[in-house]
């Protein structure tokens, strides 16, 4: 009986197996997102709708606030710098991964995947230990070596936040780069070397442009993650350090101003999509050669 029912479901066209997931997402994803959208434009008090009057008041409040723009600017440059340094550190390792033997490849892959399986919170905590106070790892080493006499203040700064973001998001940059680099055609490099180009020139003129799809994938993911992360700024940036994502958390959980929280969350989401779109479009312009393939 049950089996024949399953049979019928599977026979009734391809959609039915996907129907439960589809329905689930409509109820627990689309509808919540709709409520989030509504809460940005309709007055809310303690989670209940006060009146069904559509208002742009919250949006205007935020957009005309100088503080918001300063906070947004910090979110933006933290995102950009984290992405840039992530790329800088990820690329050489991903490139070397394609040049070494199977054993070392495995080691690099394990080193990359392992942090993904560890919670980001634990890894952020590690930076508290490393950068923190006079007993932090860096200061302890520097003072033992006599390089500094007083502990440096490293925690609770842009530096600490960006270091944390770079380390925590590295795997998301390395993995797409490894994927695209290991499937590349080595003959092109041999051709370039054969034509008299140096290895450095070959790297910048051949390898780097050919890995553009991986670069776009990695940078968009890392930017989106860094731009919307609120845990790292809270822990490594300290009390007064706010980004848009941190503000969303504070307005919703601490201040309980859900209208403002909702509109900030929406602004964060929309601006994040716009930046990702811009990176993708700019990247696509740089790799128009891929279109000829089709």
């Amino acid at each position: 009986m049950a089996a024949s029912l399953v049979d019928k479901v599977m026979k009734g066209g391809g959609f039915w197996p996907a129907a439960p997931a589809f329905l689930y997402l409509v109820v627990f994803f689309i509808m919540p997102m709709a409520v989030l959208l509504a809460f940005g434009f309709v007055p809310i008090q303690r989670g209940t709708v006060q009146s069904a009057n559509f208002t742009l008041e919250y949006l205007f409040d935020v957009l005309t606030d100088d503080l918001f723009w300063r906070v947004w600017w910090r979110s933006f440059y933290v995102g950009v710098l984290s992405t840039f340094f992530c790329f800088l550190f990820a690329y050489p390792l991903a490139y070397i991964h394609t040049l070494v033997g199977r054993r070392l490849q495995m080691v690099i892959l394990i080193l990359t995947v392992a942090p993904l399986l560890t919670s980001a919170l634990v890894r952020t905590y590690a930076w508290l230990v490393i950068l923190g106070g006079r007993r932090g790892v860096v200061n302890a080493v520097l003072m033992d070596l006599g390089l500094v006499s007083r502990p440096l203040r490293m925690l609770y700064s842009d530096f600490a936040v960006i270091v944390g973001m770079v380390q925590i998001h590295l795997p998301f940059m390395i993995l797409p780069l490894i994927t695209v680099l290991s499937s590349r055609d080595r003959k092109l490099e041999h051709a370039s070397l054969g034509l008299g180009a140096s290895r450095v020139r070959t790297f910048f003129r051949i390898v780097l442009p050919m890995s553009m799809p991986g670069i776009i994938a990695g940078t968009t993911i890392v930017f989106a993650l860094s731009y919307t992360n609120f845990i790292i700024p809270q822990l490594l940036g300290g009390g007064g350090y706010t980004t848009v994502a941190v503000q969303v958390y504070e307005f919703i959980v601490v201040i309980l101003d859900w209208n403002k929280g909702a509109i900030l969350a929406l602004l964060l989401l929309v601006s994040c999509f716009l930046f990702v779109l811009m990176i993708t479009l700019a990247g696509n312009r740089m790799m128009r050669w891929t279109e000829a393939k089709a």
Partner: protein
Amino acid sequence: MSETMTTSRPATADVAERGNASKVIDRIGATILAIIAVCTVLLLSVPSLIVIAISFTETAYIGFPPQGFTFQWYADLFARDQIIDAAVTSLQISAATTCLSLALAIPAAYGLVRGRFFGRGFASALIVAPQMLPGMVIGVATLFFGAYIAFRQSNLMVILALTVFCLPFAVRMVMARLTQLDPALEEASLSMGASKTRTFFEITARQLVGAIIAGGAFVAIEAFDNLTVALFTASPRSRPLSVELYNLVQFDSSPMVAALSSLEILAAFVVMIVLAKAVGLDRLRT
């Protein structure tokens, strides 16, 4: 070497000189590349090792280098009911999220890959969409939706929201395997008289085991560790371990936090070794 070899002209002094210059540049380039790569390797591994080292210190504060050796902080950890309860809560949430995600993801992947129906592109886009959103947005949206329909923060709310967040991982892993799978295997089974159901369980599902394990493991780990969704959806009275740890990190400076973190690192490492043995590490890249 290859520069001079392929030049048709004889190797004049000029060419040789240029060859030497580019050789120097090449050596510098390779050195820079290697230095950065070593830094990256250190960056990936050292922080975790430091946390583990510090968890054994005898001092009551976090400091480097760790002094002495003690399991005291681990003992403290297991003596705290609050933490044990949180760990149990997290395990429950993780197990429930994994089961729910897989139950939805496996048939969904099958329908999306094998089915031919109107709006398939839209359906696939919807099912992987939550992955593009930050966990915070999903957490906030669920919290608001719950408030709207008078549904309180609870373990159930965490599970429902985390399933939205994790579903794309699971669907994509199963889809990736299913796309590689020759549909003729299923047709062969049908032509031998097996029903569609029997074919799915005896043939298709058997080929998907690796992807299901990998996807399930990823969901389980994410659901256990997740903070960004849980922070908004968990009830203050039964907090999962991640939220508990978040509070400890902020307000407790004893090495007990390092001990808890070390245990998580250890668990992640064990899971990865098991996964690597079971399905191969390459699979984890998708």
